[in-house]
């Protein structure tokens, strides 16, 4: 796969040694090519560019997986730690409104992508563990004593529904 063919012709997109960077205040990595595998950093700093790149790769029918922005040098982490960080960011960043609406707009199947990740690396136990932690935090609510009102950690109801049904949908995806 030629990276120069895929990436938009713009001064902000920079390629160096199979890594694509975005020039937004600093050079932030967005895509890594390791042999045949392609990784995209699911990063909230550059949501606009991540969505643009996902749309292009989806059109070209190229398979890819998401990755945590912490993992730049792989040799510093063990294999379990890498999966833990990746899956944590998978679950947490879909609660972000811009990612949730963006993926819906470009009709990208996010749950299918998670199930592909689990099939490739066989890390169901880590996913279950991370999902239990993140679900507890994202669906939590607190009482504001100044306003006498109850607030959720994630304000939108459709996102909360998606998160609560995520594990079930991943299981269905794995079956078929």
């Amino acid at each position, binding site marked *: 796969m030629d990276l120069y063919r895929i990436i938009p012709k713009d001064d902000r997109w920079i390629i160096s040694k199979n890594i694509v960077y975005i020039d*937004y*205040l*600093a050079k*932030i990595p967005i895509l890594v090519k390791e042999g045949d595998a392609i990784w995209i950093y699911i*990063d*909230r*700093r550059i949501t606009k560019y991540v969505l643009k790149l996902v749309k292009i790769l989806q059109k070209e029918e190229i398979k890819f997986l998401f990755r*945590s*922005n*912490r993992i730049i040098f792989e040799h510093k982490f063990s294999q379990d730690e890498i999966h833990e*960080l990746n899956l944590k*960011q998978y679950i*947490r*960043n879909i609660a972000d409104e811009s990612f949730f609406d963006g993926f819906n707009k470009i009709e990208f199947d996010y749950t299918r992508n998670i199930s592909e990740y689990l099939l490739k690396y066989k890390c169901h136990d880590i996913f279950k563990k991370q999902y239990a932690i993140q679900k507890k935090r994202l669906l939590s609510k607190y009482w504001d004593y100044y306003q006498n009102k109850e607030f959720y950690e994630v304000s939108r109801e459709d996102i909360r529904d998606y998160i609560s049904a995520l594990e079930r949908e991943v299981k269905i995806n794995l079956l078929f």
Partner: protein
Amino acid sequence: MRSRDWRRQKEKQKILKRLKGLACQHMYRTYDANDNWIQSYKWMDIIGTSTHYMYKTHTTKHRYKNRWGKGKKVGFWSSNDSKTRVFDKRLFKKMLDREYDIKSFNISYGFIQNNTEG
């Protein structure tokens, strides 16, 4: 000439300067935009967080007025800059509110003329 691009570039330089300054001075641990707990962080890790957006809104004091920020009312260093145009306007609005019961959001030249003497 000093066009919109020039102003945007200058603002970017100013924000970068503030970000780099903070990373050198203060704490060594922080949460980044993706809620990761990072130890011995660099200025790139602050991008997208609340502190980064704070630096966009805050202003720095200039000889004549406050500059480099979206909300020009919020001072970056101090609010005791009594010689600036922004501070004068704030005082003027307070005076109108106190003496003539005119709220600050209703201000226009015609409105003041109608409601005041002379």
